[in-house]
């Protein structure tokens, strides 16, 4: 597929390509974050027949709809490539010895071999938490490792 990129001075960038069925499609990315979905006229290839302006949110939704199967496919590929690894989500319970303590204090990687790759707090994903990250009760810790290793992290965070 031949994707053409054209700068639009003062407005943004235009990408367009021809589909296998012979229609031409384009997206204008404006500096302010809006997107225009452009469908070219079959008769006059210079002109757009339809041009639909999307807000940044609408653009995100559309790209998710168009890209979703793609992302699932990609994730499946990744887990196949790293066969034997699992991702585990472990909640810091209210009585956990590590609630209100630093991530470094768990020594999780040294003691279990698994890595803490992210923490979910208040529905927000905090990727790659640093050693000085302080856990709170209710945090969900995302751990990657072999099944045995991640289970060991679960015990560690529950019982110390």
């Amino acid at each position, binding site marked *: 597929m031949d994707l053409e990129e054209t700068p639009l001075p003062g407005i943004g960038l235009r990408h367009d390509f021809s589909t296998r069925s012979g229609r031409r499609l384009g997206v204008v990315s404006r*500096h302010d974050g809006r997107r225009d979905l452009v469908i070219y006229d079959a008769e006059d290839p*210079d002109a*757009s027949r339809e*041009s639909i302006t999307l807000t940044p949110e609408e653009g995100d939704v559309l790209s998710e709809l168009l890209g979703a199967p793609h992302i699932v496919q990609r994730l499946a590929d990744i887990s196949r490539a790293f066969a034997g690894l699992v991702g585990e989500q472990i909640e810091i319970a209210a009585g956990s010895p590590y609630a209100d303590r630093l991530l470094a204090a768990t020594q999780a990687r040294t003691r279990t071999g698994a890595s803490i790759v992210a923490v979910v707090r208040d529905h927000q994903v905090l990727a790659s938490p640093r050693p000085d990250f302080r856990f709170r009760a209710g945090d969900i810790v995302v751990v990657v490792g072999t099944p045995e290793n991640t289970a060991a992290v679960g015990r560690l965070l529950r019982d110390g």
Partner: protein
Amino acid sequence: MHDTATTFLELGAVLFVLGVLGHLASRVAISPIPLYLLAGLAFGHGGVIPLGASEEFIEIGAEIGVILLLLTLGLEYTAEELLHGLRRQAPAGALDLTLNALPGVVAALVLGWGPLAAVVMGGVTAISSSGIIAKVLGDLGRLGNRETPVVLSVLVLEDLAMAVYLPVLTAMLAHHTVARGSLTVAVALGALVLVLYIALKHSEKVTLLVYSARSDRNDEVLLLRSLGLTLFVAGVAQRMQVSAAVGAFLVGIALSGPVAEGAREVLTPLRDLFAAVFFVFFGLQTDPVDIPPALLTASLLAIAGVITKVATGWWAARRAGIATMGRFRAGAALVARGEFSIVIAGLAVAAGVNPRLGPLAACYVLLMAVLGPLAARFVEPIVRTVRNWWRSRRPPEAMTPRDA
């Protein structure tokens, strides 16, 4: 000294009327600029409603309006886009400026206004209104069209030409001696080259003056710092007799990236306010009785202006390999003149070049700001009708199979 109450009453009334006119303009999908000019004609000396107390404020507001118009123009394009446009579309830009300055120059010479007025009128007829055109292209859903980059790069080159033209014009209007005049022009051009260099190589340092990336975006800080920097540089430029507008334009070019986008967002409402004041001020300076005598010349200039812009767009689009309909769309899109024609005429009026120049420029912009969007909207049906009529005139046996 007038009392504050009268000033508020007058200003309030003027701004409210402008608001109503702007609403009207958006309802019938035309640019509000001609209506603002008409409002300016209606107010003030010789108009229906005289203004006394607020004229002082309107005058300063108009000056700020010019600075903000040029600042946002500079913010619109990055230095890369300017240089890229220069490399790719230089012939189209040269044709655009020669062809479109010509009617103005000829008109001024034929009317016997002298070479200085010819330089001014050339600028008035040459520069398209990038504001009106960008809005019309967006409204008509033509941003994705293949002729649109051609239209935009012609606008970019006009921009660059303005950066050279304004200091030259300012020097000429100030009646400098040749030596003094060439010095100011050299300073301005040197500054332009320097700013382009800084914008290309050290943009992030200039950017630090108005915004630090580490703190979260703060609209208030961004607004005060970018406006402050611009007014300061404009003041320095004016002191050096280079024209405040050029200073503001250069600040706009030097700022780039997300900061330019942010600055444009926070400054746009302010620009809209002061630009409206500027158009009113230009109208105020013009006595309505001077308008009818200027109408004939303005109409002739308007006809010439439509033809020369369509020719420019047609040629530039053909160069880019666009088909016939697209060439006419490109030409029609370029027709609108507006804010920058008034900015140029405003400089000349302030310098007292010719008392008839102001009314003519006002009349010309009134026509072109209305004609431009109409031309862009109706070019396709017009071209199609003319083409069908042309074909129907030819005897059927002369028709090639492709036409059928």
